[in-house]
């Protein structure tokens, strides 16, 4: 029994190794959105030294997946928020049906990943902000 179990586990390991090897080989053809040079730069800054491109791309894919997951969650929040608006208001906002990444959605989605982001109630992103209250009321 023990021998058969051992054989099964060794076969399973071989399969896992094959899957991993295939994945690493596929990374040679896959081009992540985050460029290799940029990842190398940040990895080098943190003391990660490896000449293998596949590992660099693995890190790039991991980061890309994380950002994509966060953005997908934020998109779901955005869509949910837009669908819950009262019908009267919805008619007004028909024009502005664009899906915009906002701080509310991002902070909600990031909270699930253990990142607490709180945005300021008032953020003057330009020198003219707050000078003209009439335009803000619009």
């Amino acid at each position, binding site marked *: 029994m023990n021998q058969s179990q051992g054989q099964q586990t060794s076969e*399973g*390991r071989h399969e*896992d*190794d094959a*899957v*991993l090897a295939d*994945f*690493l080989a*596929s*990374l040679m053809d*896959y*081009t992540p*959105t*985050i*460029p290799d*040079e*940029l*990842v*190398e*730069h*940040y*990895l*080098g*800054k*943190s*003391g*990660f*030294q*490896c*000449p293998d491109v596949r*590992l660099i791309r*693995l*890190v790039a*894919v*991991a*980061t*890309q*997946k*994380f*950002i*994509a*997951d*966060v*953005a*997908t969650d934020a998109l779901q929040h*955005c869509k949910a928020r837009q669908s819950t608006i009262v019908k009267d208001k919805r008619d007004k906002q028909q024009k*502005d049906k*664009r*899906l*915009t*990444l*906002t*701080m509310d959605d*991002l902070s909600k989605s990031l909270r699930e*990943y253990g*990142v607490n*982001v709180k945005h300021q109630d008032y953020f003057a*992103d330009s020198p003219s902000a707050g000078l003209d209250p009439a335009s*803000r009321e*619009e």
Partner: protein
Amino acid sequence: MSSKSNRSRPLAAKAIPPPSTPLSESDYAFTITRTAVAQICSSIGFTAAEGPVLGILTDIAVRYLRTIAKSAADSANSASRTQANLVDTIAAVDELSSVSGFPGAWRATGCFLNSGAVKKLDTFTEDSKEIPFAKPLPRKIFSVGSRKGMRNVGSSKIEYIGGEKKHIPTWLPVMPVIENHEKETVEKRRRELWGYCAKTEEPEREKKEEKKTDSGEKESKGLELPLKRGKVRFKIGGGGGVLGVCRSGGIGKRVLCENWNFDDENSSKQEQL
């Protein structure tokens, strides 16, 4: 917050560096990351993003990258290695994805090579559409650890990549380039000249070296002795009455001697007046 819609702009127009700050290397890297993050958001389905929000997401992406790198480098270093390998990287990825969870994370003693996080990455690469970066970047534009005055420029870069200095790890800062090319060639010529006709050029050389106050230049051992004797001669001749100053030695001594002479001259002038 009705002004949000006014502030939202197209994703492509977001790669603007913050105003009134010099565009350093890190800013450049951050701007590129910002563009990449904007591309990812656009591929997910967003049509626009607020500027500060995109900045926060970019910052998180950079932190994520650096955390993976630091974790992998730490585990490599703890195993007495300088180069991180696959196991270190997968362990780092596992560690960071344990917040959201992945299949097989419950196994405390599981092998890293069949990690569920990596399998999720595999499915991600298969399912997601491949979006390359907007513009191809030139290779090795970032020199790791470069600072002002230590940036690796020109042909010496080739030495570090595959030339004479390829044994030096890339994460080490580049050796500072102090001498320019012209100075090197001039020195080389001079050495060649003195190497072949040292006897004939020696008196001239002594005169030249006496004028120089810079002690940083190192010459061959056989030619150093007359230089030092020359200085001693100067000590005895210049400040005969001021032994204490002469004993202290160094460059400042000459100044002192000159000052003494200057005072003497002044006193003599006063006497004349």
